[in-house]
């Protein structure tokens, strides 16, 4: 007891104010005993004033002026009662909305993921191959269109930077419809579209043309607009619509360069799944069978090769082609795996 008393020996008012035991007695005089504090100031009379001061502080704070609202408790209660049904219905609505939102959010997240995944997969170099007998229609990032014939290959870089010309690399045959991006009178490098085929570069703006690169022979047939053809050998010419440029890469020493008038209908017959064989020899058809369908064709009598046809053959199926040949040329056709043997009857 004495040690407890002596603890307070040098206490000031602020110390009493901070002392939990003292505060408890001050706050709850009924529940706690005042005996200890009476004994304390009997023991240490000088503490009396400090204790009285601390007690006065507590009393002052306890009796501080309370703010009174203009609203009575009754009015406040009535307002709460009025608001409860409003809040309940709002809560109901938000619960439905939240459920809806959660579903929408998950759907959106999945969609976003798919889009990002697709986008990522589109980065870098894009390559497209067509198998024998297959044709494919490609839409490029600038919304130009390429129709790729069978057994062909095209490569392009997906992210066409705005300051670089659009470039594609082609092997085989394809028909291009290039979108014209240049603003009138303001031609920039990025407005050019370059097709690399063999050792030729075809530079165009917005045009429609067919490029065929088979057996070392490149044919560029222009239908609309203009194409500038540049070769590694210094070849540089501008093609007009309706012209076809033929370039033989195999005959390097003696390059056959000719410009002939083309027949759009004939050149593009492949895009319709037909083979226009007007004035065509069997040799041309053999080329198609080998180039586009991957067959090995053996013609036993070479004189047959120069025989000419007229008409249109559907080329969606090899059987159709062979049927037409058999009946118009009166030949015998044998087919083993990927080999076709044509014999005179």
């Amino acid at each position: 007891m004495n040690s407890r008393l002596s603890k307070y020996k040098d206490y000031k008012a602020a110390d009493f104010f901070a002392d939990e035991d003292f505060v408890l007695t001050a706050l709850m005089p009924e529940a706690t005993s005042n005996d200890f504090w009476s004994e304390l100031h009997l023991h240490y009379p000088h503490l009396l004033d400090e204790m009285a001061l601390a007690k006065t502080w507590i009393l002052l704070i306890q009796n501080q002026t309370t703010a009174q609202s203009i609203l009575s408790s009754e009015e406040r209660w009535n307002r709460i009662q009025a608001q409860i049904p409003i809040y309940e219905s709002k809560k109901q609505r938000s619960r439905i909305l939240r459920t809806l939102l959660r579903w929408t959010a998950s759907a959106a997240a999945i969609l976003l993921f798919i889009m990002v995944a697709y986008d990522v997969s589109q980065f870098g170099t894009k390559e497209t191959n067509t198998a024998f007998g297959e044709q494919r229609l490609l839409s490029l990032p600038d919304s130009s269109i390429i129709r790729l014939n069978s057994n062909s290959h095209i490569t392009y870089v997906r992210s066409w930077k705005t300051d670089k010309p659009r470039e594609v690399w082609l092997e085989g045959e394809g028909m291009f419809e290039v979108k014209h991006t240049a603003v009138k009178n303001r031609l920039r490098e990025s407005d050019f579209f370059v097709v690399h085929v063999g050792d030729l570069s075809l530079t165009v703006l917005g045009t429609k043309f067919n490029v065929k690169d088979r057996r070392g022979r490149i044919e560029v047939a222009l239908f609309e607009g203009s194409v500038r053809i540049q070769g590694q050998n210094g070849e540089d010419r501008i093609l007009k619509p309706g012209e076809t440029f033929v370039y033989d890469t195999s005959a390097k020493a003696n390059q056959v360069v000719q410009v002939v008038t083309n027949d759009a209908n004939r050149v593009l017959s492949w895009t319709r799944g037909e083979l226009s064989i007007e004035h065509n020899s069997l040799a041309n058809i053999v080329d198609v069978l080998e180039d586009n369908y991957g067959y090995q064709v053996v013609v036993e009598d070479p004189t047959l090769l120069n025989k000419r046809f007229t008409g249109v053959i559907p080329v969606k199926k090899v059987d159709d082609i062979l049927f037409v040949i058999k009946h118009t040329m009166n030949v015998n056709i044998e087919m083993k795996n990927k080999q076709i043997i044509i014999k005179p009857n």
Partner: protein
Amino acid sequence: MNSDQQIWKMFQVGHEPSFKILFERYNKLLFNYGFKFTQNEEIIEDSIQELFVKLWCNKDSLSSDVAVKNYLFKAFRRTLIKKIEQSLRRADVTNSSADYLPFTIELPHDLSMIRHERALEIKSKLDQALMQMTARQREIIHLRFFEELSYDEIAGIMALSTKDTYKLYYRALDSLRKHFGTFGLLVLFYILNQLRYN
């Protein structure tokens, strides 16, 4: 039998008279507490109403074992501060956070309950000492001596740790010591003055 705890349990099962008892017990105290942060009565009313409306509508999801007063003060303080901040932001005042909100303690004008011959002098000194404190220190003193809450409960209400609450409180005492440190000496001067003029 009418402890907060029991009333709370009755309220939670949907006993409306118990809800009203809770309201009667606390609505004026909460208004008084709110008034120390802002003089905008509309905000205080809105906060009290929102608190009790939500209390009733969400009674099923509330914990059944809570210190009721503590819980109400804490929820009310949070609601009120949010509303004050919203109103400040509307008035384009930046830097609005609970720490910047004022907290006023208005000592009584009627000192008849104080049996101390220098009550008036003590009051004015206490007033000065309180004014020197920060708003949050005053809030702790208010909650401890007026609302008679423990430091743990105060810490919960003010979203502080108990340790920080103590720290703030003990720092507040420095202000008291400073203003009352020479108290005895001043009394001597006061008495001497009185003698001289009499």
